[in-house]
């Protein structure tokens, strides 16, 4: 299996480990990730305004590269995933945006959202299959109670992301179970961690993030996984002692890659 790979800025700097482990895991599962040439930063958050085009271009370029390569784009970072998927949805459905972007980029063939975006987790579920993962697990995480933290970006808006049930998702729980651990469901798993307010006012992000971890703890989680570097940062910084790791770390460990 070959996919185009969009690492995103965070994975190239602060979170190089995430990038490395994601690639190694993919390799172990027989997936080849080809990094998109000359990819540019997605901007970190989807530009909601209907009249902004410039801020959508880098995402469109990535999607066009994927269309040309004929395979879906895989992202590990849920922010990139959110931006790419929603921008692509705009290209599919919003005539004005599509028209303006195409006039700006002037591709040989106008782009209308033909490319496909997959989050690494979606790739695991829909392309690799959790059953395959279950078979390939060398170190089952038996006995560990793990809570999944989805946050906002993976799930919302539900109709556009079409990732999972936005109010009662299960993909990360299935992932945890496939690795042999026990998945702990808790109500705050789709509540916001405080996001980019971390820059301005860490008191707020601390409040939001500790509420999430408190909820996970109450439900019996001993550790928490996430799919977003910013969530990871906020959760780790909120002062709670519950360990929070990136989901690929867990996969890396279970596949016995170190």
């Amino acid at each position: 299996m070959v996919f185009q790979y969009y690492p995103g800025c965070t994975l190239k700097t602060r979170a190089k480990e995430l990038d490395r482990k994601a690639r190694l895991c993919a390799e172990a599962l027989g997936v080849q990730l080809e990094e998109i040439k000359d990819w540019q930063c997605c901007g970190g958050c989807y530009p909601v305004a209907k009249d902004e085009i410039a801020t959508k271009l880098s995402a469109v370029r990535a999607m066009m590269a994927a269309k040309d390569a004929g395979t879906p784009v895989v992202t590990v970072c849920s922010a990139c995933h959110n931006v790419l998927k929603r921008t692509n949805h705009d290209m599919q459905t919003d005539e004005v945006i599509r028209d303006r972007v195409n006039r700006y980029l002037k591709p040989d063939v106008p782009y209308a959202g033909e490319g496909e975006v997959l989050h690494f987790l979606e790739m695991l579920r829909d392309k690799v299959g959790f059953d395959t993962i279950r078979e390939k697990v060398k170190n089952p995480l038996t006995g560990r109670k793990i809570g999944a933290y989805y946050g906002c970006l993976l799930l919302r808006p539900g109709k556009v992301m079409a990732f999972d049930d936005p109010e009662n998702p299960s993909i990360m729980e299935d992932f945890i179970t496939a690795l042999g651990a026990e998945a702990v469901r808790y109500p705050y798993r789709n509540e916001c961690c405080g996001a980019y307010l971390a820059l301005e006012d860490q008191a707020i992000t601390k409040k939001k993030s500790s509420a999430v971890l408190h909820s996970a703890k109450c439900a019996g989680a001993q550790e928490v996984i996430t799919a977003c570097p910013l969530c990871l940062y906020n959760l780790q910084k909120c002062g709670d002692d519950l360990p929070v790791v990136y989901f690929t770390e867990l996969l890396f460990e279970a596949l016995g890659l170190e």
Partner: protein
Amino acid sequence: MQRIGVFVCWCGSNIAATVDVKAVAEALGKEPGVVYFEDYQYMCSEEGQNKIKNAIRDYKLTGAVICSCSPRMHENTFRKAAAAAGINSFMVEIANIREQCSWIHKDKVSATEKAIILGRAAIAKVHLNAPLTAGESPVVKRALVIGGGIAGIQTALDIADAGFEVDIVEKKPTIGGKMSQIDKTFPTLDCAACILTPKMVDVAQNEKIRIFSYSEVDAVKGFVGNFKVSIRRKARFVDEVKCTGCGLCTEKCPQKKVPNEFNLGLDQRRAIYIPFAQAVPKVATIDADYCTMLKTGKCGVCSKVCAAGAIDYKQKDTFVEEEYGAIVVATGFNPIELKKYDEFAYSQSPDVITSLEFERITNAAGPTGGTLLRPSDGTHPKKIVFVQCVGSREDGGGCGKTYCSKICCMYTAKHAMLTREKYPDTEVYVFYIDVRTPGKSFDEFYRRAVEEYGVHYVKGMVGKVSPENGKLMVRASDLIEGKQLNIDADLVVLAAAIEPDQSARPLATMLTASMDTNDFFTEAHPKLRPVESPTAGIFLSGCCQGPKDIPETVAQASACAAKVIGLLAKDKLTCNACVAHSSEMLCNGCSTCEKVCPYGAISYEEKEFRMPDRTTRVRRVASVNPAVCQGCGACTVACPSGAMDLHGFSNRQIMAEVDAICK
């Protein structure tokens, strides 16, 4: 060539003041085919009518044109007069020279000129008129009621009371419907079972009523007065006649793990069961999905314990064919699925329940014996949050309904009030968007909940429910106070939107009855014919037509019965004379007309025709059922070959009027 008489009415001065009636009469007298003309002060008077009758006889008229007031006023009067004089009543045409001429014009010259033109158009039309006879069809004096809830029960009882036979088809093992699951009824708080079960017994004992329980309508043919219906009686593996309803089998059956749908899955029943104590008919039914005997052939306990020998594992579905004059749809409603509303954690916590589940929990015959207990741990909830409008009043595109479900405000007030009455230590919050209480004693009822029972009504919607440490954390906004609330509730009750029963859509197709986009049956007229479907002979009772509470349902059910009785009381139905008809020689058999007919009046048949070259050919041709056609004419325009035409308003008649006006 017709012999036409023209009669110009003065209507006192109403017409004569602005229209020169003599000039009109004389001008029209010169039209081809007109052999007689006359003007008179009041054509509609006894004397005026006699003038028409006499002229018809004396001048051997074949048609008459009356220049007078609107046909909506006196067309019938003049038609009757013509018929009395021996010509077909459809040989009369009216030229409306009052409402559409003298009353709207001031200038006598142009008004007179216009009156002459209108008269000419009417004459041109009469030239092409042909005698019409309205057809008749017999009426089978029996009604079918589909659905045995309170709507169906009330309609059936009322029809039977008038002396007509009624059959009720109910898909569940017992009649009773949703009302049998309800605990108390608003606004009087009398017990639902106490007022419903006597009616169910009345149905069972009424000689005019037959109940086909555990049955479904399989096919419908025919038309008003003459429906032929095939009813599937599903195998219940118990002989209805032999079974005494003693219930021994339902106690001895070893398969105990069947979710009890009557209690909405809150407890379990056996594989052989009687839904509830007052079921009608009180007969056991085997659930084939769970019965060990039916699945594996090993068990047979119920058969062994049945003293009446009523168990029959080999029973098969059977079909009953019956004829009916009228069909009543009373298929009712269901609360919507709440899977898509997991911000309220309905599928994540057993303590988040629907209002109907709350009814069962508070019902003395329910799974908790009427004690209010949490489904998760059986403890008594100290704080209850009611959430209104779950899935109602949504914008299209979501999974919810665009309409207001109408009953939720009132039953929630009831639930809140009853909870506070029985358990004064329980705090009750109701989150509402609007409290809608139009109805007799309804708002007073809601105010009592607030003022006397201390229910906290909060204006604002709940945003999220989080199950945490055995509690349900409810986050909501209080829009009046302008703050966000966090309530640690023990029980959350969701007022789920209601929707028509799933069986309604396929049934509507069978009946050719129209439905709206929400799958509610449409009424023949939203204000003036609210209990009839546009399809003749199909009547609507209860929630299949739209959300309504019990008092409204019963009122509509009785209204529906009155309409049915009115139909069944006739020996013959006089059909509309101005119906569509298809020329078989011109028909292409393309089915276009059939698609636009709102009444399902057009059908197709293969017919053998002798062709001009003496060969025979089988052709597919349309035929219109005159008993069903209402004469709108949609088919006549849809027909590409011009085979379809309308009696009384034929293509040539209308074009003759056009020509006369444009001359």
